[in-house]
C-alpha cells in the first residue's frame, strides 16, 4: 500500500510541476529575435570588450537594434563580418585588417634607472612605485606583462629582450592591450605592413641616444631618403604613413640606429644588430 502512495504522490507532484511549468512557459514566454542567436554565433565569443559593449551578447544586441554597425566587432575578420551583414541584410565595405603594435624594442637594451624591481609583477604597479617607470626612457615598454594579461587571445608575449611583442597572426585588433598599458606604448598598424619603427621616444636625439641603444634619435635620414615620402619624423620620432609606404626597405638600410625593421610579414621582429 505504501509503495502505491509513494508512486502516486511523486507522480502527482511531478505531473503538477510539469503542468505548472508548461503553463508558465506559455505565460512567461519571451520572444527573442532568431537573428540574435545567429549574430552571436558569428561573433568570436571572447567577450574582449573591444567593441565597447558588455561582451559579445551586448554587441549582438546592439547590432540587432541598429545601435552599432555590422562591423562593430574589432576582432571579426572579413568572413565573420560578412555573415553578420548577411543576417542583417546589409552590405559591408571591406575594412583593412589592423593589428596591435608595440612601439618599443628596448627592454634589456635600454638604460634602467632602477637595477632591480621586485614589486608586483605588473606595469601599473611598477609605474606607481618608481615614479615614471623603471627605465631611463619615459616612453618605453616596462615588460612586466600587463598587456599579456589583458589579451584574451594569447597574442602578446614578453620576448627575449623583455619587451612586449604582438603575434600579428593571432592579434584581433581588440586593442585591450593598448587600454591596459600604463605607458601607452601600444598602437596599431595595418596587418599588411612590412616596415615598422619599434620606438616611440619623443626626446631629442642626444637624450634618446643615452637612454636606449635602440632608440629613434630623429635624425631624419629615413625621411630624406624615402622615395615616396612615406616616413616622416614627428615629435623627434619616425612615423610611417602606410598609405604611401611601398615596403622598399630604403629606410631600413639608411637608419643609423638599425632601428627600423622589415619583418616581411612573418609576424616576427627581426633581430636588431646593435652597432655599439
Amino acid at each position, binding site marked *: 500500500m505504501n509503495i502505491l*502512495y*509513494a508512486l502516486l504522490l*511523486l507522480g502527482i*507532484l511531478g505531473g503538477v*510541476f510539469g503542468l505548472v*511549468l508548461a503553463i*508558465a512557459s506559455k*505565460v*512567461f514566454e519571451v520572444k527573442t529575435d532568431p537573428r540574435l542567436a545567429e549574430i552571436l554565433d558569428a561573433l568570436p565569443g571572447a567577450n574582449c570588450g573591444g567593441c565597447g559593449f558588455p561582451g559579445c551578447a551586448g554587441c549582438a544586441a546592439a547590432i540587432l537594434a541598429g545601435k552599432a554597425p555590422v562591423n562593430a566587432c574589432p576582432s571579426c575578420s572579413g568572413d565573420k563580418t560578412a555573415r553578420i551583414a548577411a543576417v542583417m541584410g546589409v552590405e559591408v565595405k571591406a575594412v583593412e585588417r589592423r593589428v596591435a603594435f608595440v612601439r618599443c624594442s628596448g627592454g634589456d637594451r635600454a638604460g634602467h634607472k632602477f637595477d632591480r624591481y621586485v614589486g608586483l609583477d*605588473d606595469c601599473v604597479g611598477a609605474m606607481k612605485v618608481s615614479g615614471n617607470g623603471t627605465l631611463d626612457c619615459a616612453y618605453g615598454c616596462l615588460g612586466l606583462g600587463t598587456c599579456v594579461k589583458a589579451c584574451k587571445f594569447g597574442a602578446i608575449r614578453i620576448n627575449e629582450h623583455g619587451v612586449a611583442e604582438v603575434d600579428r597572426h593571432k592579434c584581433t585588433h581588440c586593442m585591450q592591450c593598448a587600454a591596459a598599458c600604463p605607458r601607452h606604448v601600444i598602437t596599431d598598424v595595418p596587418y599588411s605592413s612590412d616596415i615598422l619603427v619599434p620606438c616611440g621616444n619623443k626626446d631629442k636625439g642626444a637624450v634618446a641616444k643615452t637612454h636606449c641603444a635602440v632608440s629613434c634619435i630623429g635624425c631624419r635620414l629615413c625621411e630624406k631618403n624615402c622615395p615616396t615620402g612615406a616616413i616622416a619624423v614627428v615629435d623627434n620620432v619616425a612615423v610611417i604613413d602606410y598609405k604611401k609606404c611601398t615596403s622598399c626597405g630604403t629606410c631600413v638600410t639608411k637608419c643609423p640606429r638599425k632601428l627600423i625593421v622589415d619583418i616581411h610579414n612573418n609576424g616576427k621582429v627581426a633581430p636588431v644588430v646593435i652597432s655599439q
Partner: protein
Amino acid sequence: MDITKLLSISLGAILVNNFILVQFLGICPFMGVSKKMDTAVGMGFAVIFVMGLASALCYPVNVLLMKLDLEYMQTVAFILVIAALVQFVEMFLKKSMPTLYEALGVYLPLITTNCAVLGVVLLNVQEGYNFIESVVYGITGGAGFLLAIVLFASIRERLQFSEPPKAFRGFPIALITAGLMALSFMGFSGLQVW
C-alpha cells in the same frame, strides 16, 4: 514565536554552521564563481533567493510526506521541488525582471544542482523547524553563503598578484585558501545566543 530562537538560528546559519566553510555544502559554485567579486556577489544573492523560496515551498511538501508516512521519499521529492522551482523562477524573472535575470545570468540554473539548497531543506526537516524558522534558516543560510563567497573572492582577487610556487598556482592555492578559511571559521563553534 520566539525571537531569540530565530536569532540563534540566524547566527548559527551565518557563522557557526556556515554552509560552505563548516558544513562543506555547495562547494562547486564556491570554487567555480569566486574568481571575480561581482559574479560572486551575484551568485550569493541568487542563492539567498532560491534557498529562502525552497525552504518555504518544501515545508508543505514535507507535511504531506509525513501525513502519508513517506519520510524516506524526502530527498527525491525535495530535488523535484527545487528543480521545478528554479525553472519556474527563471522563466518568471526572464519575463518580468529582465535586468535581474541578466545579472544572475548562468548562476540561476546552476543553483538547481547546488547541494547547499537541498541541504537546507533536509536540515529544516532534521531540526524540526516550523514554517517561519525554516524560511529564516534558508535565507540566513544563503547569507552565510554570500559572506563566505565574498570573503573568498576578495582573497582570490589578491592571489592573482601573488607568486606561489609553480605547483600551487591557480586552483591548488585556492583550495588551500579555502581550507584555511574553513579552519578560521571553526573559531565560531560554540558561539550561542541565550
